[in-house]
């Protein structure tokens, strides 16, 4: 039983070029509802760009994106993004708003909740990430790990059907990584549909249902973690794994 109203996500034949730089060259990614797909690969392989194309922060040149089986390219992108939560490497909390207001603000403006209800829901979300007591301070007073947990709470408060994590632990001090990964694991096990771009091979192997290895804008290999990590088929993946493990 899922505690989230998760949807499936599918990317088909995504192409994207910035001028002559072809960043994505025919990417396919299929994430069934309630599963976690991790995307690994060297820097510059197009992983983060793929996330931004799938919630249309960047419009693809070609291909299709299906959320819950329906193409989203004709939908209003602002509405689409409310259905997909996104967590960034640099947290990107709003520094001029309190921790609680970082969450409540979007609930008021986008989900049109009345003020006290938005506040109550924000506190509830903060409770889930163990930071209710920080609701009234500015984000800059929190540690990186705490800020990232607030960012996750902010995304979850919108009740998304899918969550994107863009190297969510890369900017954290080593001792803070664990707490954020534990929270992400809880979400995955709670049945959230997740796409996780990560350098955390342990998380990728233990938590995700499928692993996709990207290099130079193409999917080189994709499959269950056991296959990808224990029986890599291609040279490129073997080389990558021997570099990072």
């Amino acid at each position, binding site marked *: 039983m899922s505690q989230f109203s998760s949807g499936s996500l599918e990317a088909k034949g995504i192409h994207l070029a910035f001028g002559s730089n072809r960043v994505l060259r025919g990417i396919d990614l299929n994430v069934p509802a309630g599963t976690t797909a991790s995307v690994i690969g060297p820097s510059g392989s197009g992983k983060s760009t793929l996330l931004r194309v799938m*919630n249309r922060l960047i419009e693809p040149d070609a291909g299709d994106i299906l959320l819950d089986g329906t193409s989203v390219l004709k939908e209003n992108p*602002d509405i689409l993004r409310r259905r997909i939560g996104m967590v960034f490497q*640099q947290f990107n909390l709003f520094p*001029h708003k309190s921790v609680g207001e970082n969450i409540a603000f979007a609930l008021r403006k986008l989900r049109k909740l009345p003020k006290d209800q938005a506040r109550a829901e924000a506190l509830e979300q903060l409770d889930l990430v163990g930071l209710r007591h920080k609701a009234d301070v500015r984000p800059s*007073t929190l540690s990186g790990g705490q800020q990232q947990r607030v960012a996750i709470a902010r995304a979850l408060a919108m009740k998304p059907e899918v969550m994107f994590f863009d190297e969510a632990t890369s900017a954290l001090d080593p001792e803070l990584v664990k707490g954020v990964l534990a929270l992400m694991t809880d979400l995955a096990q709670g049945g959230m549909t997740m796409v996780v771009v990560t350098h955390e091979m342990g998380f990728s192997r233990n938590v995700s249902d499928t692993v996709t290895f990207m290099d130079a804008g193409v999917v080189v290999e994709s499959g269950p973690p056991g296959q990808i990590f224990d029986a890599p088929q291609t040279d490129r993946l073997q080389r990558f794994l021997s570099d990072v493990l």
Partner: protein
Amino acid sequence: MDYLTNLGETFFDWKIIGDVLPSMFAVGLPNTLVLAISSGIIGTMLGMLLALMGISRNPVARWIARGYTDIFRGLPAILTILAISLGFGPVLREFTGITSPYPMGVAALSLISSAYIGEIFRSGIQSVDKGQLEAARALGFGYGPSMRMVVVPQGVRRVLPALMNQFIALIKDSSLVFTIGVTSRERELFQIGQDTAANTGNLSPYVAAAIFYLALTIPLTHLVNWIDARLRTGRAQDRAEKIEPDEAAAVVGKGAHG
């Protein structure tokens, strides 16, 4: 010693200063404030519009903002004030029956200050991390609301000191309005000083005007410094919890010997 006495009388004839004070208080100060504040407000609104046009994705809007800014920042203020007042004064009279060039003075000061304020806002807005816009958009805010509620407030906060400096410059530049020939009730501080100096053949009225300007600008300058310091230390205090002891000590430790 005669020279010193002469100079003293030329600049500090207290009787003349005392005589000019009432009209400075009653006419000059209000007019200076009206000119500076009204063109400050209009200039700020126009400046924000220019800044948003300057960073817009529409190339025509960017081009217009760029051209406007280049022209009004590139011209001497006195030239703009004269050209606007003498050029558009008759048009204004035609349509509204207003004969005074005073509104045109306000318009000219607004146009000039908006070019500077636009650049101040633009630099502030552009200094906000791109991740802020991305995060707001990822939540589901459109471009406009993201800018209005997330990016612009952060950018404006950063440039408040520069904005205040611009207002101080406006108080001083309002003196240039004397060139367009306003009525005696519309004279600002400088012009009252100048007229009285011409009548008395003594420079003390200028000193009186100077005292008024300094009484306005010096407190504002210190207010700017105070705001600036508060914005900085406010941030430092926010971070204080996170600063490692050796990081905090570095200033006295390594720095002192370096």
